[in-house]
């Protein structure tokens, strides 16, 4: 008699044992970045001639600020997932690999946090 659930038998199977969450998150952020990324390029072209106040005005409306934040989150999450794979593929020493993955994730989170705070501050008008 087997005392294990079917799920527990299947978990960790396969050579890599892990990666579905990474795979799905990469696809989800990619889909989000299709409209958000194109919107970003359009905004940057529109803001080419803008001075300081003109650029800030692009963040004023709360819906605009929300979209900028969504773009930022999707961008940095997608970026760190991709960079993680690059580190895994090209860094062969285990210690450097782990350090590299941690550095990539922390840098993405730090930059993302700084961007979100800045967007909120600019939108609120400070």
């Amino acid at each position: 008699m087997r005392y294990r659930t079917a799920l527990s038998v299947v978990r960790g199977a396969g050579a890599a044992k892990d990666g579905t969450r990474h795979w799905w998150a990469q696809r989800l952020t990619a889909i989000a970045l299709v409209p958000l990324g194109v919107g970003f390029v359009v905004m940057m072209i529109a803001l080419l001639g803008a001075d300081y106040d003109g650029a800030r005005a692009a963040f004023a409306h709360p819906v605009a600020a929300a979209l900028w934040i969504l773009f930022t989150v999707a961008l940095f999450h997608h970026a760190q997932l991709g960079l993680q794979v690059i580190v895994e593929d090209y860094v062969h020493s285990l210690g450097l690999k782990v350090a590299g993955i941690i550095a990539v994730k922390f840098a993405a989170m730090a930059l993302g946090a700084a961007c979100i705070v800045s967007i909120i501050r600019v939108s609120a008008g400070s």
Partner: protein
Amino acid sequence: MSTTGRPLSPHIQIYKPQITSVLSILHRVTGGFLCLGAVVFAWWVITLSLGPEPFAVVRSALGSWIGRLLLFAWTFSFFFHLCNGIRHLFWDAGIGFELRTAHASGKAVVAASIAMTIAAFGLAYAM
């Protein structure tokens, strides 16, 4: 990259580049290059909340000839990564793996990327 010190068969020097393999590595290279662009985007956004002087520094840096060159490279990288990324999403759904389809979609991705880059830069210079 042989960590054991034993000889490796040549592969990159021997195998003829295909549109499939070249676009694959280009997808990774443009992705990595766009990460640098993400850092510059962060710098731009953060200066907007710091004040007009830091923002002016970013603006003049991006407006310099090297800034414009980088922006051109980032624009092409973005459109290529976008179009090839959509090609990847079709593959994730199981569509387009036949060799002729993959070759055709690859050529379409390159053409679309170039066209979109020219359109974006044309629009930018017209503004």
